[in-house]
């Protein structure tokens, strides 16, 4: 199969972005964006559609099995993971566009600096004050919440999120939810207040984020769960929130 990869390039944070179109051909009937990027970068003879040689495309990856969130980028206009996005034959040559996540400051090519996501969690004091209590009721919620990849895809589509604003977005939902599920009520006041202010109040519940979450986290359920504990202060109601 043959495709054209149209990639938004940028040498470094200070440089102007520009597009490059790269032909890619493979015997595979189906392949991931990650495998195409790897193959192109390893090809010492690589040329763009105009026959010009070019430097390897910078992008981030680690696990290559959609478990680490490293390779998040905008693929055909939608945020997703390069190792998850499969391209399959349609018969005719097609173009796949790749851009870095735009919610975060650009670094180079397909890399964006997602540090703000981690800084935010630090600023909002998302950690355990101690005394977490494991219960069978909390196990499922804590598990689901712990699965968040911190990939940033949800922030990319959220109409209410902008970096540096007061709404932390749903990348903060997982970490908050795990702790709220496990903390005894008497110890969760501060965390609850922080959650209410920086997650609950900012979220418009459009759930655009749920549709793009590559980990398939049931964001809706986590929101209902954490709202019950932190906003409505009813832990028992939260325990009843099931899939």
């Amino acid at each position, binding site marked *: 199969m043959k495709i054209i990869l149209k990639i938004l390039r940028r040498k470094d944070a200070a440089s102007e972005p520009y597009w490059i179109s790269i032909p890619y051909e493979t015997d595979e009937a189906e392949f991931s964006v*990650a495998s195409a990027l790897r193959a192109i970068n*390893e090809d010492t003879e690589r040329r763009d559609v105009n026959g010009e040689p070019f430097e390897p495309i910078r992008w*981030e990856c680690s696990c290559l*099995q959609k478990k*680490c969130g490293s390779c998040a980028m905008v693929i055909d206009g939608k945020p997703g993971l390069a*190792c998850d996005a499969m391209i399959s034959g349609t018969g005719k040559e097609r173009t796949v566009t790749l851009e870095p996540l735009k919610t975060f400051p650009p670094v180079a090519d397909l890399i964006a600096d997602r540090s703000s996501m981690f800084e935010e969690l630090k600023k909002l004091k*998302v950690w355990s004050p101690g005394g*977490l209590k494991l219960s069978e009721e909390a*196990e499922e919620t804590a598990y689901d919440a*712990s699965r968040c990849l911190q990939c940033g895809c949800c922030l990319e589509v959220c109409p209410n999120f902008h970096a540096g604003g007061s709404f932390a977005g749903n990348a903060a939902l997982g970490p908050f939810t795990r702790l709220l599920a496990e903390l005894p009520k008497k110890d969760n006041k501060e965390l609850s207040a922080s959650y209410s202010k920086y997650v609950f109040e900012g979220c418009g519940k459009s759930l655009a984020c749920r549709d793009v979450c590559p980990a398939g986290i049931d964001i809706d359920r986590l929101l209902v769960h954490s709202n019950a504990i932190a906003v409505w202060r009813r832990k028992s109601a939260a325990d009843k929130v099931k899939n």
Partner: protein
Amino acid sequence: MLTGMPGFGAEYMGDHGAVNIIGAGFAGLSAACLLAREGFSCRLFSVQPSERAQSVLAEGGLNAALDTMGEDDRPEEHYNDTLKGGVFLADPNAVKRLSEEAVRVAAWLQELGVPFHMKNGRVVLRNFGGQKKKRTLYSRSSTGKIMMTALIDEVRKYEASGLVERFPHHECVRVLIAGGSCFGVRIKDLYTGAVCDYPGKTILCCGGLTGIFPGMTTGSALNTGDLAACLFSEGVVFSNLEMIQYHPTTLGIPGKRLLVSEAARGEGGRLFVMRDGEPWYFMEEKYPELGNLMPRDVVSREMYFTARREDCGDTVYLDLTMLSDAAWEEKLKDLREELIHYFSIDPMTGPVPVQPGIHYFMGGIDVDIDHRTSINGLYAAGECCSQYHGANRLGGNSMLGALVGGHAAALNIINTEKAGDMPEADHLTGSGLYPVSPEDDPALAEASPVLVNRLSDILLEGLGIVRDGQSISAALEKVRAAAGENPDYNLREKNRLILAEAMLKSAGSRRESRGAHYRSDYPETDENFRRTSAACYEDGEVRIAFRSIPERRES
């Protein structure tokens, strides 16, 4: 001691410099937690944030003899199984510490809120390969990810209090070593390109040699092996480099091998090949006691030989169709989803074709029981070091080894600082950081993927599941030929060639079969080789020596 340890008090703060930790997987986070809890500050460098470390990929679980399943399990049995699984090549004193600390590590992780699977108020333990009793804590099929989330939250607390400083897109390009001591580390900010030296004692937690075999392992692309190669060429001693674990059940996807966790066999999965038109469950026939759950080296080797038999098909299948819906839902959900996503195979309805793939490096940087390397002030923990697992690592023991190792290294630093025993390296302490111009250090230039892939192919010829003197020598010749071909290799390329030679020479020197190292020309285990192979690069030459293993001290 891991939990409930009394603080050493603030009098030690400020009069010592920050500790450098290279790598932010289990080993790095574990070291950071203990240092910070004791009031010591550290810098946590990693190529990418913790969420992206290989540690998040661990699926099956963590071993600890908690004995919640009414089987009368004890740390001593965990000790026995670990030593036996490693075919008595591990340091028994270190393994004893591992098996005892396991119970405390498990308690600590529960305090941090890791949602391990529980029933009736107790943690549920599962079976894992090479162990007769249920001893493995788990959190469905994402145990590593779920544990990492809790540890990351814990470290965040110390980040906020200023004791842990994160450098999450920073590569360590070399360790600054002079006169047998570590003076600090050289770090490149991968986002800005800036290069700086940071003084201080250093704990290496940079993961296994995955990147020496790109595309051929189950691990993460972040662990390039460049730093290990650099350290080796600077004279740091490595050990048991020939011990490479092939996981029996993997499938190839672009850029890596996808793991089918041992948990799938723990739940009842059966390996078979087709023989005379019938499935033959060869493991169960040959090993009636542990069957499909024999240690990984045994299973991989049996698969290798069985698939080469004339009367058998050449594909080995894993049959998981008998697993209960509950097992899929509660324990192996991600696995099923992955198999459907990448291969269109639904393991609930049909068998999965599997092959052995490289999964773990038992060998690595040589360390003592306190995780000190051969260099003063330099420590190593986690998969980058060689400790606990001997000739073969048991499933569920490596996250544990990384957590215990990180703690042990940190504890040794805390104790030596407390005793006022400052190694020479400390004269740099507190003097800030030193910018370096990128042109100044050849260690900054990357190795070409062409050479990296070529070396990987050569190494695989000599370091396969089954090896012999001839294949090892032939591979060694090819490495030397490649080295001689081009005088203009850059430093990283040269370092890789040297490390490759050390790996092959280690395998060539061990003229016996033990654990993961199986030589068809020496198929027996030889008591004379119950020794650690130590590799060192001196005066431009790779030297291999065998060192005896300490006796178990009575406690």
